[in-house]
């Protein structure tokens, strides 16, 4: 087997292994958020855990949702660029994705600040306990995704020639996005 063919087989194998692994990992993440969200739903149905209208800033959260969804789109385009071998495009789109994640975290921090200033701390009642735990755990996941994408962006060699790495980071990033799609209506709109 020539070196080039060998390297190609090695990369294809690594891509297959990586994808299987990430899907299993995400399955366990679904159960983690599933456990927390179901606990919240049960508490909410029991009447204990809900916010009064006006306590949460729905408009800002909706804008934040839009930011996060847009960053999923740039992630998809970054993967397409990596597959084309378009180094500049990949770096630009990954940078945009990272910016989207950071903007999301910034807006979230702004929301937290306002809520805490109004006395809605994590110990202000069952809803606020769930609110900070759910959105905080999600924010930690966003942070991990930002670090992953920033690493791929900073060292373009990681992704170029091995576009599956961008794809795997993308799988994770979309998952983080989907979790938020569940959290936004459950926490802010219900």
């Amino acid at each position, binding site marked *: *087997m020539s070196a080039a063919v*060998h390297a190609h*087989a*090695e990369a*294809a*194998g690594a891509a*297959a*292994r990586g994808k*299987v*692994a990430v899907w*299993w*990992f995400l*399955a*366990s*993440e*679904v*159960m*983690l*958020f*599933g*456990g*927390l969200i*179901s*606990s919240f739903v*049960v*508490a909410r149905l*029991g009447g*204990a*855990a809900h916010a009064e209208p006006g306590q949460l800033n729905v408009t800002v959260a909706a804008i934040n949702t839009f930011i996060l969804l847009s960053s999923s789109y740039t992630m998809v385009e970054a993967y397409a660029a990596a597959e084309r071998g378009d180094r500049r495009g990949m770096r630009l789109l990954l940078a945009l994705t990272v910016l989207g994640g950071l903007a999301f975290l910034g807006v979230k921090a702004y929301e937290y600040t306002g809520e805490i200033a109004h006395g809605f701390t*994590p*110990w202000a*009642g*069952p809803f606020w*306990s*769930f609110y*900070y*735990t759910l959105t905080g*755990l999600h924010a930690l996941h966003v942070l991990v995704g930002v670090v992953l994408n920033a690493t791929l962006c900073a060292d373009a060699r990681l992704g170029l020639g091995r576009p599956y790495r961008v794809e795997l980071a993308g799988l994770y990033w979309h998952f983080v996005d989907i979790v938020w799609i569940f959290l936004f209506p459950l926490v802010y709109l219900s």
Partner: protein
Amino acid sequence: MSPATLAAARAPEHRAAAGFFRTYLYATDHKMIAKQYLLLGLVMALVGGFLSYAMRWQLAWPDTEVPGFGFVGPETFNVLVTNHGTIMVFFVAMPILLGSFGNFLIPLMIGARDMAFPRLNALSFWLLALGSAVVVASFFVPGGAASAGWTGYPPLSAKTEYTGVDWGLNLWLLAHAIEFAAFLLGGVNFLTTVVTLRAPGLTVGRLPLVIWQQATAAILFLLSVGPLIAGAIMLLMDRLAGTGFFLPERGGEPLLWQHLFWFFGHPEVYVVLLPALGAVLEVFPVFSRKPIFGYRLIVWATLVAGALSFVVWAHHMFVSGMDPRLAMPFSITTILISVPFALAVFAMLASLYRGSIAFELPMLWGLGFLAMFTVGGLTGIFLGSAPADIYLNGTYFVVAHFHYTLISAVIFGGYAGIYYWFPKMFGRMLGTRLGHVHFWSTLVFFNLVFFPLHWIGIAGMVRRIANPLQYDLVAPHQWINVVSTVALFGLILSQLVFLLNFGLSQWRGRAAPGNPWEAATLEWTTPSPPPHGNWGDAMPSVERGPYEYSVPGAGRDWLPQRVGAAGAGGRS
């Protein structure tokens, strides 16, 4: 590209002169990592066993000085029960049965050179080692170690002033978190390896059953641990951030923890049981020279039991104050789950039926597993039924029940595997004379420790009491506690016999041939112990199922799975 060519494409690594650090500490070879897990599990078993010694001494002769430990008393007793349970389940059973067996067997039995992610594998092990260190360290912080029971029920566990334990309990939660991360990464690695790195010809229908069991256990763990991690985060928030998830006075709900805990807790029982069952399923065909009875039946039973294990959890909560209307459906699912396990047990019996049984040590342990597990399974039916459970819940009947299931798995199933694969793992035969002493004394003492506990449980002795003599109900039966404790001394001494044998055989044991048991699965076609990369230059391929014993017309009484392996001979 097929998985097989991918496996072949990964060339064997040549590093004959790896130093001590690479070989023993930062090891990425799955066989060395398996040994690390085994050693860690055995060391932690000594810790957990020592706790059980102090605990049983206190129960037999309450409030007397325990030799080598000191005075126990109620608070320390709670620390002992809590950490005995935690250590034995999470830091002994899982490292040995999943960590060690899974790492050693999966690549060797599916014809791969290593796990799919060797460095991730090393990370899993060292995370677990860190978790073990944290749980041991928790004994030495101010306020002492966790004492809220191995189930950590709030509100007891949610506030420091209820138990007086502060950082001990936080560290206990932290140790769990690290342990879960370790086995999550390990489980992802196991599943990826089984899915992507099988040898050519090794279809899923030809996988050895132990691989099925390991993979199912990994799936169960991956899918069940999430809610408990969520619960652990919430409990830690209650303790450190002042939230009130589980505290009624802050609008919380203590029962929620129990749901989250047991949603994990029941599948966890099978996470421990299945690899042990798998080891015994490998041993039976080899030592009865018969194909396993009902391969597909066993696979389906495993998968069905795994699926059902997600809908039985509330049988741990019949007397917890949950909605009583839930008792009936959970009783039904619980009794239903005994059906696939009964099928598996009958398939095992049928595998033995009219075989040429050789009572070698792995087989003795396997038979011991079958007998002891059946006792545990039968008492489980009592407890699964809500009316009986309302009386028996929280008594020593439950303690006896789960020790019959867990010890049959961890001790009997675990030793079946250790005695069976020891020659492959270490290249030496494990001594049989001390081995027989070990088996028979363990069998006798185990039953003497735990069978009488059924009686004292029915008589009304409840768990987690430090001084049974304080209860008029229990005091007349105190002789049972004394018998059980004295037998425990014997049980612990028997395990020291094993450790002695284990150590002696490492350097004085007979050199093991490649296939000492004349077994058909792939791992026995490698030298003992297998070299780094397992297969030299010739990657194996597979042409038949794993249990082709006593095939009519074949030259020998077994046909190896591997294409072209010695002993595959045609007709005589």
